[in-house]
């Protein structure tokens, strides 16, 4: 996204810099910054500090702005009682696998569709893109039935990480994103590599991939957040307490656990994605906008 502030928008630059315009601009900016901070950080503050409050303090009217008598024990209880270490490890493991599978298989597919262009390539791409029209909820039942009894192989993937990894590879959005990026790499580079006697795999590895780091980063980040945010699918295919993801684990415990502890666990579950976002926000934002715009 361009950071240039020189382009003219709804209201002209000159108007904003003149007497009255300037006052309005700065007042509005201040109001928006304060309001947005309250609306978007406020609830998070409430969540992090609320989990530090005691049971009585939570039920008190009006609620206190900050914990009078902080109970870090809530976080410790959440960590121990819900076995968050295990849940976080599972989620991390699924996310890592999802990144690897998507990077390898989707990149190979996009490379083939963009540069090798085998026969029926366009038809295949069309069929892949068509799946973007099918809402996840429509497929949930037949997908589940497929996963518990894979066609031909008759394997049951319940509680196997492959039940999360493989369906994520069937991600038309990623393939489209990668293919479009590869399309922008000049054909001449490919021809040059061919003249030098490079095989397609070698060309992919030594020419295409090094040039594609930004888009590979975006795909990886999306893969991690997709696994971290998903709920229903892991809930269905990872039924055992040992294989659960962190979101599903917290949900499973929510019924019989004090609410402060559930919130403490929710805070811990949210930390990884929030940290990833703060580190990679530039890449995420550019990936999001290039992916959804510019068809």
């Amino acid at each position, binding site marked *: 996204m*361009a950071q240039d502030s020189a382009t003219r*928008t*709804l*209201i*002209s630059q000159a108007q904003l810099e003149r007497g009255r315009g300037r006052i309005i601009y700065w007042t509005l900016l201040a109001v928006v*910054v304060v309001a*947005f901070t309250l*609306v978007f950080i406020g*609830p998070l503050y*409430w*969540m992090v500090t609320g989990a530090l409050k005691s049971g009585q303090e939570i039920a008190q*009217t*009006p*609620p206190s702005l900050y914990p009078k008598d902080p109970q870090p024990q809530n976080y410790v209880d959440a960590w121990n009682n819900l076995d968050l270490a295990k849940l976080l490890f599972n989620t991390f493991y699924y996310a890592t696998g999802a990144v690897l599978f998507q990077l390898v*298989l989707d990149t*190979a*597919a996009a490379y083939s569709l963009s540069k*090798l*262009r*085998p026969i029926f*390539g366009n038809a295949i791409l069309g*069929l892949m893109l068509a*799946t973007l029209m*099918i*809402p996840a*909820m*429509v*497929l949930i*039942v*037949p997908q589940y039935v*497929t*996963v518990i009894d894979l*066609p031909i192989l008759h394997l049951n993937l319940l509680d196997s990480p492959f039940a999360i990894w*493989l*369906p994520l*590879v*069937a991600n038309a959005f990623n393939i489209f994103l990668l293919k479009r990026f590869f*399309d*922008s*790499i*000049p*054909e001449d580079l490919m*021809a040059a590599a061919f003249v030098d006697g490079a095989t*397609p795999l070698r060309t992919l590895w030594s020419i295409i991939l090094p040039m594609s780091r930004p888009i590979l980063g975006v795909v990886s980040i999306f893969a991690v957040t997709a696994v*971290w*945010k998903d*709920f*229903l699918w892991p809930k269905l295919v990872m039924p055992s307490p040992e294989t659960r993801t*962190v*979101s599903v684990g917290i949900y499973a415990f*929510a019924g019989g656990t004090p*609410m402060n502890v*559930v919130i403490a666990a929710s805070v811990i579950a*949210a930390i990884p*994605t*929030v940290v990833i*976002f703060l580190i990679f926000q530039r890449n995420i934002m550019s990936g999001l*906008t290039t992916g*959804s*715009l510019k068809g």
Partner: protein
Amino acid sequence: MAITTVPGTTRQPGRPEPPYPSSRRRTSLGRKVRDNLTGHTFLIGALVCFAVFSWYPMVRGIVMSFQRTRRGETTWVGWDNYTRIIDDPSFWTAWKNTFYFTFLALVLGYAVPFFVAILLNEFRHARGYLRILVYLPVMLPPASALFLFKFYAYDPSEAGLFNAILAALHLPTSEWMQSPGMTMPAMVLASTWMNMGSAVLIYLAALQNIPGELYEAAELDGAGIWRRIRHVTIPQTRLILALLAMMQIVATMQLFIEPLILANGAGTGDSATSVAYLIYQHGFFQNDLNGAAALGVIMLIVLAGFSAVYVRLTAKQD
């Protein structure tokens, strides 16, 4: 907004560029077969995943919706599953609720991000900070965010965040999720907070593609801010507006996790039952996978209807 073409993708229609350069000129049959083989080898992994987890389930879902499985025996039952599902009174409640949610989400979750984006686009300062703020909730696992709303914001006593604010302003407090009338608005509010970030960013990018001269010209013609929004901003972003409307409808029609976590499923007096929740109920609690598949097909048809309308509307404008 202008649709830009990525350099290198411009190809003459009807005259595809030759595939991988190795087949240029030296087009012996053996070479062609080998090149195609290489291309398909690279495709195979993703292709198998699509086939097994996307294309096949699609067909299987439709087939399943006409079958019934009892004690391991599968029989063809025609429209039975459909009539059974439609006769269930919660079918209509679920559709009514889902449409109501979609409607509210369009009013709130669709219009608000657009105006937020217009506002943010005017600022020359703190832009990065504001963008991060708006997108932050999108990164939270939905379960975490919804527990926050459930326990802290929608607490029906005055100890809850929203009620405390309402009480402080001397406004009437609400029972939130425990009052059937408030269930849907409360779910839309939580869902909008969680999801609006991506829409804001997409709008922002679209707004930045509007040529400044258009505003310049409108201003010279004496158009005020509102008329500039109406006659420049909206027409210039209409493709993205239409696309996001479609995405918003498809996403909200799949309303599931909000009822499950905020309202423990159906909510007070079925006020939160959604079609997606009904699919889940039939499929995984009532052991009625075939009924759930039929519901899925009905949902697909309804959404395909929306897509058709969308394609018609957008095609007409170009």
